[in-house]
């Protein structure tokens, strides 16, 4: 295993050094190959996702295949523009000269994919890495074994196998990979492992992007229009149970709502859940299962705390055989219980009531910075307040999850939810070095740049730094002392 890994790494390094991954045509071919792969193998992907997580094929298409199709197509469309150097304006003082910034590939990069969106969150960063002209090692998560083995088997059939490699494995493989020097590490996962990744990267001065999670709060302001309330409830359900049964870094973690509005929200949530998932949601084919027994047990334990159990107002049934947990709503569980201190990452939805919705800002600010804040409100002052007084990777008003597919917005965390950003051009940038280039001519060499130093040179340089061309001229023709 060890030797094999070193060979792969050497091959990736050699391919990068050969320079072939730098050409626009190579990059485009690889992106096209990836698109062809997801078209040809759509059924296999859907099947793997069903095996790994019980993901319904429509959900799987929306959150995995569709995401990759969108990202790869967008990268193909924009690549020429992204690769073009940006010109920088230089002060006249440097005349004749020109400045520009070119994006160059970093080299050999390592991407860690997670298990919850084992196809899209593995391949989306790879699209950025390829678009930027790097060679890539993708480590697929062993916790989604079917998807991982699909990637290992299929990627080499479509893409340049000397430049894009896939490896599957657990902690041991991760540790081995981290001993080597990479030019960038892109990690999606938990803060605990994120720390380890960054510590290892520090030994080689490797920059990292950490896409972590956190408890994404959803502020629900008191809404008056019944149709708005209906839309809000659907979007909350979509952002919680509709996305891998809550096993998503941008999934709704908990709701903040005013006490007097809570009954309306709860009532409609219950009704809508029933409508969407039927009378026996455990048997619904529209709900993902929990990824494995460990996570099932973890979630089970969250509910076992007697005070938490007492706060369940809807659902709460678990099927250990099928690893399915019913959509579960809790009203005001204790704030120091694990369900309110740890990221839930599952189908449990605590609702915390406040006297006044404004208190939600302080509530959020007293906890680690989340990846996303969702807020349903029509109050523009409150919107502005949320944007300027809280901190999070992103803020989405009146909807959930959609920011993820909006390529013009950077996607990434801050503080506890990580750092570095991707999507659209940001993916390209995250895998590029912005190299500053300045070109001068041999003409016009200014004597005052060189010693021996004297007062005249000092005056000259002072003026030059102020870009005070008028006085500079006076000084040069001897009119200024």
């Amino acid at each position, binding site marked *: 295993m060890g030797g094999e890994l070193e060979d792969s790494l050497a091959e990736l390094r050699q391919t990068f050094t050969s*320079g072939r991954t730098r050409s626009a045509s190579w990059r485009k071919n690889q992106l096209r190959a990836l698109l062809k792969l997801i078209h040809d193998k759509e059924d296999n992907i859907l099947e793997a996702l069903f095996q790994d997580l019980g993901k*319904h*094929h*429509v959900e799987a*298409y929306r959150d995995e295949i569709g*995401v990759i*199709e*969108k990202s790869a197509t967008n990268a193909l469309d924009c690549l020429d523009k992204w690769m073009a150097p940006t010109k920088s304006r*230089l*002060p006249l003082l*440097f005349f004749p000269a020109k*400045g520009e*910034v070119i994006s*160059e590939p970093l080299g050999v990069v390592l991407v860690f994919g997670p298990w919850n969106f084992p196809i899209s969150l593995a391949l989306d960063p790879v699209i950025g890495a390829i678009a930027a002209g790097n060679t890539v090692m993708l480590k697929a998560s062993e916790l989604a074994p079917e998807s991982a083995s699909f990637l290992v088997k299929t990627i080499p059939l479509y893409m340049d196998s000397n430049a894009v490699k896939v490896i599957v494995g657990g902690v041991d493989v991760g540790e081995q990979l981290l001993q080597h020097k990479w030019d960038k590490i892109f990690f999606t996962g938990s803060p605990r492992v994120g720390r*380890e990744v*960054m510590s290892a990267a*520090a*030994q080689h*001065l490797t*920059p990292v992007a950490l896409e*972590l999670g956190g408890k994404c709060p959803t502020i629900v302001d008191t809404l008056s229009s019944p149709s*708005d309330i209906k839309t809000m409830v*659907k979007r909350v359900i*979509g952002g919680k149970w*509709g996305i891998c049964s809550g096993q998503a870094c941008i999934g709704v973690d908990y709701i903040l709502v005013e006490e007097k509005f809570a009954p309306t929200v709860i009532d409609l949530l219950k009704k809508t859940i029933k409508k969407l998932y039927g009378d026996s949601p455990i048997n619904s084919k*529209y709900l993902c299962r929990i990824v494995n027994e460990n996570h099932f047990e973890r979630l089970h334990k969250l509910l076992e705390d007697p005070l938490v159990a007492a706060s369940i107002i809807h659902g709460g049934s678990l099927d250990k055989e099928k690893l399915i947990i019913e959509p579960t709503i809790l009203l005001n569980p204790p704030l120091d219980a694990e369900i309110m201190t740890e990221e839930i990452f599952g189908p449990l939805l605590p609702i915390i009531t406040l006297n006044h919705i404004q208190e939600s800002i302080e509530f959020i600010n007293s906890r680690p910075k989340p990846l996303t804040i969702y807020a349903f409100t029509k109050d523009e002052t409150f919107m502005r307040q949320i944007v*300027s*007084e809280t*901190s*999070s990777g*992103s*803020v989405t008003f*009146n909807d959930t999850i*959609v920011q993820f*597919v*909006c390529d*013009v*917005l950077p996607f990434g965390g*801050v*503080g506890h939810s*990580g*750092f570095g950003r991707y999507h659209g051009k940001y993916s390209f940038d995250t895998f590029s070095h*912005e*190299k*500053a*280039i*300045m*070109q*001068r*001519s*041999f003409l016009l*060499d200014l004597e005052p*740049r*060189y*010693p*021996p*130093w004297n007062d005249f*040179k000092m005056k000259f*340089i002072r003026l030059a*730094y102020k870009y005070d061309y008028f006085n500079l001229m006076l000084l040069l023709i001897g009119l200024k002392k």
Partner: protein
Amino acid sequence: MGTEEEEKKVLFDEEAATSLVKELRASFANGKTRSYDWRVTQLKSMLKMIDEHELEIVKALRDDLSKPELESTVYEIAMLRNSITLALKEIKHWIKPEKVKTSLTTFPSSGEIVSEPLGVVLIISAWNYPFLLSLDPVVGAIAAGNALVLKPSEIAPATSSLLAKLVGEYMDSSSIRVVEGAVTETSALLEQKWDKIFYTGNGRVGRIVMAAAAKHLTPVLLELGGKSPVVVDSGINLQVAVRRIIAGKWCCNNGQACISPDYIIITKEYAPKLVDTLKSELEKFYGKNPLESKDLSRIVNSNHFTRLAKYLDEDKVSGKIVYGGERDKTNLKIAPTVLLDVPRDSLIMSEEIFGPLLPILTVDKIEDSFAIINSGTKPLAAYLFTNNKKLRQQFVSTVSAGGLVVNDTTLHLAVHTLPFGGVGESGMGAYHGKFSFDAFSHKKAVLYRSFAGDAAIRYPPYTGGKLRLMKVLMTGSIFSIIGALLGWSKV
């Protein structure tokens, strides 16, 4: 006051660091530093501070490094003044949210990217430009609305204590602090949770800083160094090239600068001419006895002096000196020294020189120089002198470095429209101008949706028709969407 200060210095341990950060965090939390007024007031104050104390600053730099007044005025004070003036002029634009055009997939919606301060940041600076490299990042941190701690280098003690004094007098001490000290104090600071750490220095400490940051998931910006090469092609105005090399090497703190030319690569054929020109220009600038020149900085301390002496005394190197080589241990002075054809496995060619020694490597063909550069770690800067367009093109596309300059040296540092920062061993992250503001900001994505425009396809129960519509929605083509809605599409 003085003794109290000293006591405080000795007592700066982890506990002190913890309470300092707590204090700054409280100050940041009350929102003061976020206001536009606060940022502008602090920047203006800093401007006033350097205007009123320019002489003291020059003196401190002379004490620490015997830095010539002109160098201090130009590279430390004027550069900083420009940086502040630019921030003051541009900050209104920088803090404005950037509107973005959202796609059809999320219609109807509008989006913006809001720059928000990261929080409480730590800036650890270096001894070679102890004034500029301390306060230039501070300008960015303030402009972006952060509270901060600055830890100047203990190796430039006069500047460090002057910074502590002046910052204490001029800046808002509830949000901006200076902590002086060495390893113990730095370690105590690194134990704390920061929202960003900005470090200027070497790769060894850079690794320590990043590993410490990892414990708190703190992003880092590392400004390191490296061996910045100069490739000199034939058929150029050699005199101008040589003067510009000298300006970047000995006129920049006697080579003790992270973007100083570290070594030259030239063809065998052209090398003698280069050496001759270097000799005559150096003599014009620094006279026959450069150890006496007032226009050269000294070596910062005896450790560094010994390090540099060791490079020259290595057996396979000592015979290669073609110019200079004189040193004065008592005054910590080393004359501009040029070495020809040093072996590549020598110490001087395997470490960053950071001093007044300039080795010249020779190659048969100038194109061979790129392979030499790429065989080492990525430098902070790389320079090329040429009139050959093709060579220039090749240089730009094959040499990876923080920044490149063609036909000059070090000037890119002064251009605020260019990002300044390293890659690989020379660091990560960039600053200067707006890039400084960005380095200390979080770019928060904000998406505004309306309650209208809800598509049933997003929610279960999932059907075949929903899948078809979703497929076209994800790619955002309006025609396909209409097609799918009307039932034409067979996607």
